């Protein structure tokens, strides 16, 4: 329990609209950033240049056993890097670190320094062994984010990383030279249209915990209910955005509780009671129980979300499909996007393109055709 001031003083949440894109090679083949970058450029009007970002999986195969920390340091807080270095040296074995190379000619405003560290946990004897490596890393990341002013961890998973900042996505891509330097088997991307926040590099998306990343577009009318429930499980919002709530909910249900997306979609975008009533008994019991038990995690209001972690990428839209998502497939590639046009712009020859109904997840998994499950129920 943390001592609380009245909730009256908590900041209002941010409103925003966004564009999302995700592409995965289900054979695990790594590929460059052109598709993701061009797709985002195609959806330019969905952002206003105040936030763009990318998550890439299969990014650091040579360091795949180490947690890759992408950490940004504000230029006006010169002490932050030193503090973080000290903190990391204390709690981790840092096997390699470097500044993330950037394009000096890129047009972005006020960029922070972004550094990457490859680390493995170093436990002090007094800390015991109760925490799994993952939990250990989460705890340290939270420490940096909340206790060290001027430092913020973009991502902390293995063999993956997040690049993000203030600007249009293609500007961010240019700044970090994503098209030239990196390959991965999943790319997700996000552009942002905040209505009331000044741009802050840490506030851009994707939002990430360990190797989970969330890009999200939506306006949750249930935000207050969702946030309060998550607080009970130790998730305290610091950014006051819907995406943060969505990311924490994914973390709680999927990473911590190990529920598969097929179950989680029945919580975030729960079917109507009327539909549940008409299911066959076993499913009815399942959906009824999910909805009853996790009512506060129903994400009410328009949203589209693309979540990725190792070997898996999935997209989901709200239960009455107020923010549709388009899915498509071409060979081993599976695409998810806010707009069909952006997929066709980067992959003109598609085998399939479809619009899944509200609450029906599209799940792309390595070496499977699981994504086809949503096709049969497509609109």
């Amino acid at each position, binding site marked *: *329990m*943390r001592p*609380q001031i*009245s*909730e*009256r003083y908590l900041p*209002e*949440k941010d*409103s*925003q*609209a966004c564009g999302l894109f995700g592409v995965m090679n289900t054979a695990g083949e790594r590929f460059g950033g052109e598709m993701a970058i061009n797709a985002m450029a195609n959806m330019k009007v969905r952002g206003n240049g105040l936030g763009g970002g990318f998550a890439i999986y299969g990014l650091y195969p040579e360091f795949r056993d180490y947690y890759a920390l992408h950490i940004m340091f504000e230029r006006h807080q010169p002490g932050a890097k030193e503090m973080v270095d000290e903190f990391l040296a204390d709690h981790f074995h840092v096997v390699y670190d470097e500044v993330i190379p950037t394009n000096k000619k890129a047009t972005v405003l006020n960029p922070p320094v972004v550094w990457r560290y490859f680390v493995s946990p170093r436990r002090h004897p007094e800390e015991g062994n109760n925490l799994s490596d993952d939990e250990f890393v989460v705890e340290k990341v939270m420490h940096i984010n909340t206790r060290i002013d001027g430092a913020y961890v973009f991502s902390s998973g293995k063999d993956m990383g997040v690049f993000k900042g203030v600007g249009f996505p293609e500007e961010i891509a240019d700044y970090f030279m994503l098209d030239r330097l990196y390959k991965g088997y999943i790319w997700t991307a996000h552009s942002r249209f905040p*209505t009331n926040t000044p741009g802050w590099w840490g506030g851009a998306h994707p939002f990430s915990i360990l190797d989970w990343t969330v890009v999200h577009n*939506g*306006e949750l*009318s*249930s*935000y*207050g*209910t969702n946030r*309060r*429930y998550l*607080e*009970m*499980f130790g998730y305290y919002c610091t950014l006051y955005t819907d995406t943060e709530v969505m990311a924490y909910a994914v973390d709680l249900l999927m990473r911590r*509780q190990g*529920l*598969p997306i*097929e*179950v989680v979609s029945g919580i975030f975008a*729960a079917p*109507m*009671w*009327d539909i549940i009533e008409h299911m066959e008994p*076993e499913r009815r*019991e*399942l959906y009824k*129980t*999910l909805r*009853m*038990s*996790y*009512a*506060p995690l*129903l994400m*009410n*209001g*328009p949203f589209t979300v693309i979540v990725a972690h190792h070997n898996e990428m999935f997209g989901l839209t709200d*239960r*009455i499909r*107020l923010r549709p998502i388009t899915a498509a497939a071409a060979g081993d590639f599976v695409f998810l996007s806010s707009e069909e046009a952006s997929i066709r712009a980067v992959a003109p020859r598609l085998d399939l393109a479809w619009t899944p109904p509200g609450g029906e997840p599209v799940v792309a998994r390595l070496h499977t055709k699981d994504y086809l499950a949503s096709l049969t129920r497509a609109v």
Partner: protein
Amino acid sequence: MFSHLLPEFLVERRSDRCIKCRVCERQCPNGVHHYDTELDLMFSDESPCVGCQRCVVFCPTNALSVYPHPTTYRPNASWTREKLQDLKKQAETGGVILTGSGNDKPYRIYWDHLVLNASQVTNPSIDPLREPMELRTYLGRKPDTLEVEVCGDRVSITSRLSPNVPVETPILFSAMSYGAISYQAFVSLAMAAKEFGTLFNTGEGGLPREMREKFGQNAVVQCASGRFGVDPEYLNSAAVVEIKIGQGAKPGIGGHLPGEKVAANIALTRMIPEGTDALSPAPQHDIYSIEDLSMLIYALKEATNYEKPVSVKIAAVHNVAAIASGIVRAGADIVAIDGLRGGTGAAPKAIRDNVGIPIELALAAVDRRLREEGIRHKCSIIAASGIRCSADVVKAIALGADAVYIGSAALVAMGCTLCQKCYTGKCAWGICTQDPYLSRRLNPEIASQRLVNLLRGWSHEIKEMLGGMGINAIESLRGNREHLRGVGLEGWELDVLGVKGAGE
């Protein structure tokens, strides 16, 4: 002793309209109207008039007006007419002043200082006439986590779940016992709850046997300090079992149903001899601490095979948040909180008007405390007292309630005019009375229809308000203070409510 009391109401009869049909004379249980055969004239004596308006409504020619008596003492902000009258009443009787229904004093009504939100531009509002809009609510304890087993396409739940009871609208009827209210009124509530898919509450007077099979599944049965009518069959016939610790109208006070009201069927239902006083002690004499409460909760769970949620109802008092937390930890599945304006069949006026705190503040404090302790999901919260309209329901849910109890509002729907004379047993509307001449007036078919209409009307309005906020399921409003703003409240009040001021 010659009475110094002033009459409370003035009865005016327009002679140009009166046709001397004597309806008013028959309708009035207090003997206000009377017909003089010799003079062929209607007369009235306003001193016993309670202002229940029964005669006004039933006069076929609209000849009657009944309004507060204009006679006043010299106006005095401190020594009001009411204070003077009460003084004189006590000087004449030496007794405790009794009253009925809820606190009528001008304490701040927070509902009237909270305004709701609606969607504009950034997210769409939802039209409940075209899109589904869900009010179903499950009452009971929810698990911390749900364990599931996935094999292929099939997902099965392996956690053990606590019992939960669904209601189709988050509005339940408050505890009103058979004995305090008439059989007709009691049955009307049961019929309406069943028809609409919600719950009524038996209060502490038991559930008549003949009603158990038909209405048990819509009943919250109470186990109160007098333990009237409690046996295993009673407990097992219900949907929810409720331990009554306190009542908003009279926190810390027991109850007293005088022997003259304990007729045969009431005696049978309460399991006491006919004609004996039914006395409910102030405390439950086996609960002097939170551990004792826990023992009773588990005794009731044992008695019902862990198949029913157990609710604990308390009056909202100063440290209500800590008490509620203890109740949840003691094993309750539902916490019902009854605030300062809760109604009653009979209570000492001094208690009704001065003890307890407003439900809005109590509710917000309890919700917050349970969340801070990480146990909010372990119980449902039902808020009660002074819920007058659908907007109050919406605001209560946004402040953290799962559902609300309505008592006075339901009685008004059946005919009650809040005349506050329930304790006299002479309710002109046939509600709070055991006099067959009076209770016969209430036809359960019609009264239950009025109640169902009320629930339907409110539910429609709630759906409209939800849709406006861009929400299509009531659970997404629960505790969602982002949709509330305060108007005309002071800083400390906003702090307790956890709500921003309008424009903030």
